[in-house]
């Protein structure tokens, strides 16, 4: 199969030993099977995430993202920039669009980029891996490689915020996007229908600064998954995954709940369904163990 090439922007959380390192592991088998060749952008830097606004301001934020776009343009010409992290994707896409729309910002960004020996012409498109899956591979293409359907698993598809807003996946609604449910079906599992916290905010970076307010959000997200009969939550977002998984123990401690709801990435479901091992799916990187998925991964067919 001829592979399709993309300029890959992993983002800080996907580095070795970082909070979403198991996500980074889990996309390898998935991409291999689907003919997606991710070429890491050399010396990429942090996107500033959303919380970067406080100290960063507009132009410095645009410039750090323009650096990644310029590095992709120069080193991996003709390839779409692709990120698996919604914050990286959002910041990079916003930068690409703003610089494209406003000539003065493009000139200013390039004046600053010159200090790092770079120049951005504006030819790169910033995309999310989910866009590559849905638009370039398609649901039929994703289904084709399933050798181990995740039968009997009921999963709540938790899309969260930034994969869904403000850009989202083309053709999907902001209030009730369906692609994640469709991906769950594609790998042979059952989406928890009517899961009403699908696009609820987990608190994002404010999980650190406003823990009580954020944990209220997280409680709703987990509780509704239980109410809808789900055995695990699946999400496309690194910060959602971390917040919703790791703060369940805090909520249990403070509020007397007994939450132990595993939270995994779509790529982990796909890797297992494609016959990947527990390790290849990054299932050894969880605080709350996704036992059922681990069992399927360890099973010979």
């Amino acid at each position, binding site marked *: 199969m001829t592979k399709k090439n993309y300029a890959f922007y992993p983002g800080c959380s996907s580095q070795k030993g970082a909070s979403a390192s198991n996500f980074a592991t889990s996309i390898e088998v998935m991409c291999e099977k689907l003919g997606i060749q991710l070429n890491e952008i050399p010396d990429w830097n942090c996107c500033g995430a959303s919380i970067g606004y406080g100290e960063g301001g507009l132009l410095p934020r645009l410039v750090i993202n323009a650096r990644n776009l310029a590095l992709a343009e120069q080193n991996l010409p003709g390839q779409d920039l692709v990120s698996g992290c919604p914050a990286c994707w959002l910041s990079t896409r916003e930068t690409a669009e703003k610089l494209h729309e406003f000539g003065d910002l493009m000139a200013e*960004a390039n004046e600053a980029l010159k*200090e790092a020996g770079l120049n951005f012409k504006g030819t790169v498109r910033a995309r999310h891996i989910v866009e590559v899956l849905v638009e370039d591979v398609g649901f039929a293409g994703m289904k084709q490689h399933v050798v181990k359907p995740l039968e009997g698993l009921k999963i709540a598809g938790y899309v969260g915020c930034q994969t869904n807003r403000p850009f989202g996946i083309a053709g999907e609604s902001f209030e009730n996007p369906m692609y994640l449910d469709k991906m769950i079906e594609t790998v042979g599992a059952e989406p928890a229908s009517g899961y009403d916290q699908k696009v609820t905010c987990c608190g994002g970076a404010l999980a650190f600064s406003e823990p009580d307010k954020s944990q209220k959000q997280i409680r709703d997200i987990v509780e509704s998954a239980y109410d809808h009969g789900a055995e695990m939550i699946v999400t496309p977002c690194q910060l959602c995954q971390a917040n919703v998984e790791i703060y369940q123990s805090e909520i249990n401690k403070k509020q007397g709940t007994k939450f132990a709801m595993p939270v995994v990435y779509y790529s982990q479901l796909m890797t297992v369904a494609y016959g990947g091992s527990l390790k290849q799916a990054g299932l050894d990187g969880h605080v709350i163990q996704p036992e059922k998925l681990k069992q399927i991964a360890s099973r010979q067919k």
Partner: protein
Amino acid sequence: MSEQNQQAVARYRNNFLKEVEDRVEDGEWVKMCMQCGVCAGSCPFGPHWEHSPQKIFMMIRAGKREEVLASDSMWMCTSCYNCIVRCPRKLPITHIMHGLAHYAHRLGMAPKGQPTREIARLFWNNLAKTGRVNELKFSLAMYFKDGFVQGIKNLLAMQGIGMGLMKARRLNPMEILGGHKCKDKDGIHKMIAKAREIEERKQGYAS
């Protein structure tokens, strides 16, 4: 009052709307708000804002400069973008809230010790140092932002979570020794400094 703040007051007199339009990210959109309140009702942290975005927009038009810039409301934004996609007038509300918070921070008018303001500052300084976020150093900086004793208390309270993440190999204690970084961090420093200089020049902070 900071020098930059004095200079802004002198320059814009009583026209706070003009000040916001000139100096705040996407500030030129503020006058488009029709006060429907959809943003206020769509915000996940809505109940915790002293002033909803809708109110902030009206206060800007009413010239309530001090009340807006000193408010902790904008710092309640989780960047969920609900308000942006629902606003019937298509105002980039999230961006305006970020822009207002940043402007207030830059003028030294944002509430002191506001926790989100603090983590925003720590996060940016963390990433700007090496070009990449060091999650361990960022977490430690956050826990110790209110002093050593409180820092130890925070660490103890969060040790279960920290150990869990280390066991899952999603938090690396060796990051304390430096960790991931960009090769061209000097270029990144110069580039960010230049961007700041251009922005200050453009917004007339220097004049």
